[in-house]
């Protein structure tokens, strides 16, 4: 199975890091293959940043994501630049407070930023909340894999906060799946 996931948001939200963590979870802890790519360039600075991950159980040949099956969108600009044409079968996770538009495909509104600010006290972990929700909703990696990958990747001293954020994400994601 080949999964193509695209993340977009604005600089500083940790969009790239989310993608790297996801790839890491898949490659190191689920022992799958994974490729992570991203858009560089000065416009990525102020404007929309984008990163993509492919996860597969066989070696990944063509490494670019052209038609993602899964989207994680965390800003309106990100939506406009990278989220407007999802395949009908795609699934999109949206930070509902930051993205006004809604896609034509299946989508899940995750208030990760609000959640991070109010429930966890740190906006900075919004991406981790989102990552938790993503894993819960799609199962592209296992929960243990993503936990380990998050722990690998976050600054010392913030492990607990991030774990809390991830689990909160699991809950929000589970809720989405349940309510369907």
């Amino acid at each position: 199975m080949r999964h193509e996931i695209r993340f977009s948001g604005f600089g500083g939200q940790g969009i790239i890091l989310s993608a790297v963590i996801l790839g890491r979870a898949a490659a190191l802890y689920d022992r799958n293959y994974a490729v992570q790519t991203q858009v560089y360039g000065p416009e990525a600075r102020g404007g929309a940043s984008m990163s993509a991950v492919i996860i597969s159980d066989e070696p990944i040949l063509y490494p670019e994501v052209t038609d993602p099956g899964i989207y994680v969108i965390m800003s309106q600009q990100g939506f406009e630049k990278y989220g407007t044409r999802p395949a009908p079968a795609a699934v999109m996770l949206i930070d509902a407070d930051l993205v006004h538009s809604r896609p034509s495909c299946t989508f899940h509104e995750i208030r990760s930023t609000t959640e991070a600010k109010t429930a966890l006290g740190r906006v900075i972990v919004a991406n981790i909340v989102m990552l938790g929700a993503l894993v819960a909703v799609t199962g592209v990696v296992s929960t243990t894999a993503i936990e380990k990958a998050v722990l690998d990747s976050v600054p010392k001293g913030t492990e607990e906060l991030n774990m809390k954020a991830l689990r909160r994400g699991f809950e929000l994601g589970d809720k989405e799946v349940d309510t369907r």
Partner: protein
Amino acid sequence: MKLVIDESRCKGCNLCTMVCPYHIFQEGDRLNERGIIVPRLDRPERCPNCRLQKLYGRRLCGACALICPDQAIHWDEEKPYEAQKVVIEY
């Protein structure tokens, strides 16, 4: 003349809040469409430019506009100024 922050340019750095002798620029609190918190203007009519720029034919003070790294601070001609007055008089 009316002091305005061009929201399509302002990136919310708050440098303007550091330089205005009248403290007209105040840190904002509301995220705009572009995800930016633009400063709030506190009684901008206190800015000498609002009243005197036309009169002197040049910019006075202007520290905020000069430091604003995003060219977001302007003084707009207040639209149909005379006309408005007339409206009020009616």
